[in-house]
């Protein structure tokens, strides 16, 4: 059965909204230029807008040494866009391809924090995981956070389907048992499914921290303290989570 792709659910689950006041802040300034002329500057200073139309070197001086600058020629960006139109998949695959494709004229594109779930799947885990599998995230809500759940199906290392699974036909009793849910999803989508149940607030915090050692240490700790549970419990998966926290 086709699960489909719910981009909104994926975005809401993996990249939760953050509340912030004031104006956006960033220590990286982006310059789009055509030959030597600046066409667009994006940065956290109003004065940078005056650099539009100026030579690139002049704009770089105006930005100063306190901020990192990434300048890319628009011809280079147009070329990269034309290239990634040929790739399959969604925005995540396209962004990864773009990062490989784009060659800035000045500076380097800042590191991109891929979500820790995707990073893990694309890492050495890939050699141990089956060619097709599903990850079911069951996130429990609180007074301020809405509960949510999403099933991610990977085939050959690529995220192919993602959606909130439809459990409306499943009895309330079976729905409460996450082991049962994982079993139902496995039968329905014909891929092994590993369920992870955790607190939404914890997951949001780890998502925000990104794919760093501390995130995996927190995950391993949560597993040990029963704040996160595996459904079904597979020792191999628990070991993989623990190992990522160490290495």
């Amino acid at each position, binding site marked *: 059965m086709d699960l489909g792709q719910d981009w909104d659910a994926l975005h809401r689950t993996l990249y939760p909204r953050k509340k912030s006041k004031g104006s956006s802040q960033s220590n990286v300034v982006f310059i789009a230029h055509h030959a030597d002329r600046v066409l667009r500057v994006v940065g956290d200073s*109003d004065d940078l807008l005056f650099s539009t139309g100026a030579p690139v070197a002049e704009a770089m001086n105006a930005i100063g040494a306190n901020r990192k600058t990434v300048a890319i020629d628009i011809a280079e*960006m147009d070329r990269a*866009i034309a290239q990634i139109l040929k790739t399959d998949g*969604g925005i995540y695959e396209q962004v990864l391809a773009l990062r490989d494709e784009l060659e800035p004229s000045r500076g380097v594109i800042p590191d991109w924090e891929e979500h820790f779930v995707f990073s893990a799947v694309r890492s050495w885990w890939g050699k141990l995981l089956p060619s097709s599998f599903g990850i079911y995230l069951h996130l429990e809500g609180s007074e301020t956070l809405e509960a949510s759940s999403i099933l991610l199906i990977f085939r050959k290392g690529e995220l192919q389907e993602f959606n909130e699974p*439809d459990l409306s036909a499943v009895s309330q009793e079976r729905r409460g048992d996450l082991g049962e849910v994982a079993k139902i999803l496995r039968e329905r989508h014909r891929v092994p499914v590993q369920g992870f149940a955790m607190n939404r607030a914890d997951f949001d915090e780890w998502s925000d921290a990104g794919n760093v050692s501390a995130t995996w240490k927190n995950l391993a700790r949560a597993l040990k303290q029963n704040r996160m549970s595996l459904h079904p419990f597979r020792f191999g998966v628990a070991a993989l989570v623990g190992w990522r926290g160490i290495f």
Partner: protein
Amino acid sequence: MGAPGKTAIYPLQILVNYWELKPQRLAAKLNLLLRNGITHIATFVPWQVAENDISHSLTKFLQMLADRKMSATLILSPEVGVHALYAGLPKDLAKNSEIQARNRDESPATVILPPRIFAMPTLHAKELTNRYHAFLTKLDGMIGELGRAQPELLESLQLVLTGSFFKYYRPASGSQLAAFRGQNGDRSNAAELAFRNELDHYANLREFAAGGLGIVPKAKENEPLFRAQFQQNAEELFRIRQSQQVRKRSLGVDVVQAELFTPEADPSLAYSNLFQLTGRGMPDFPAFDRMIAEAATRQAMVGEARAAPVLHWTGFGPFTRLTDSEKQYLILKSLLLLGSRGGGILLDEAEWFSLSNAFRKRVELFAETLLGRELELETKAFCLTGHLWSDGKVTDAVTKEASSLFWPELRLALDTQARLIASPEALVWEMEAKIVFIEPNVILTTEKWHKLIDWVESGRVLVFSKHQPMSSAVRADFDAAIRTRAKLDLNIGTRYFVYGAGEGKLVQFDPITVGAGATNAQVSSAWKQFVASMLSLARATPEMGVNDPRIDLVCLKRGLEAGSGRAGLFVFNGSRATVAAEIRFENEVTIADLSAVLSRASGASTAEAADDAAESNRFELETPPCGVLPISVTGLGESGLEKRDAGNLTGLTARAADEAAANELAGFQMGDDFSGVFK
């Protein structure tokens, strides 16, 4: 039942896509919205989703709405910024490179926005339009069937049709300095074929008959003019044809023509979006801010009806990465500017509820006020262009210099009170407008010319070039008409002739170009002076100004039809610093807090409150970063104009009295103050 484009659109539309949620979750979501007082929602109906809707999710959704006595707006046209792959287009069509649109650089027209960067298809391809019409017919049948069983269900539905991808066929490279700079338009094979057919059609028209004094459709030098006209016509034809597919079986359903702007998908933001996606850079807030005014100052038409401008902030584009203050600023500005033009905003449900209660209440209050047409954006001057989504610039084939342009000057002089149109039908909708400027890329045909003259004859001004492209019939008509009329020959750096037309005036100018003894700076200065003088002639000069470019003033007239002279003035500061600025009015006015005025129940009390305030023509205000100050102003419009006239008259009388006294009385000196003598 309202005719297409005539029905009011609710200014604040909360987006809940029925196809993104499973039935159980959708029901829970609708219940939650209802508990929060939301009874109307908007949803996209992606073509791909509707074609493969084997579980009848749309029917179920409409049933759920009916059960809860809720209403909905269904957006049927293909649009960018939809939360679906390829913006909800059928995959086989979206992936077919043979029917991809080509922009003026002969490159694919791309949308840089999640969930996938893709190239838009051409809306000229028969393969695509036939299937699209079949989709609309199927949908119409489904809604009609539901309506027969439950007539009340149709009453709660509003179908929205838009201009689709037409305005996005611009190269990103040409849209960086100004969003609609240069020529926009599809150059795919299908579009080129349609363009050649249209040229043949023009060439066969009697009014473009060979041998006349008008322009020749098939002449190489006229191609850009006819191309701009073609792009405009193609969009209107697309809109008309899609509206013919609905309401065939769903009789009685409300159909609205809208112009949906999705700033995040605009080519002018393509490069900054790319950087934001690849390097987690910050979103381009100033560009979003600029796009709002671009949307509010352009008026699309469908036949004689106006397309309501609606601005869409998506649920997972760069907008979501802005801070709350920036989001609130953009939401309020877009709501006020587009809502006061009969349109509004479309906002993702999760985004809406992520904002504070107090802000939501404030926005809802403004939305209600806008719906009641209590606040309207006035149009002082029109600019008629050949194509709404290109700028009016045409390059002289010989000198390679761009012709003079009205639009940038009008935007500078009048800001959002200037209106760019591509159809003269838009003129009759704004009775208060006083002047129309014709861009050099407009081809005047008999039909257009008569519509313009009818409008001008009721006391307005029409400004056009001596070299204005026109058909032979219009040229002959114009030459015959001016032969019998008296003309004023004037020169203020730009030479122009003024002819009477009923109670109005026709102004024909002789464009000055760089190189003909004039430098760039001289031409620019003369041009500014000419535009200012035309606005003054039509009494369409700005009523206020601000001394800091970081501040945007949006003046919405209150009770415009009544000519009350009351306005809601919104002071926007999109910068990162607190700005103390001085607002100058052309005459003395009184100001008050607009929110307090709007919340008061009776109109009488507002007038009394305004009377208590002191009159002045200068006010100093401090606006915080991303801040919006709403001010109520009394004394603008006709009453302000009368005050200014009275002031000028008093000045002239005093000067005449001074001069007379100086001639008659020995020892009297101009400037002596005698006011004390009479005390």
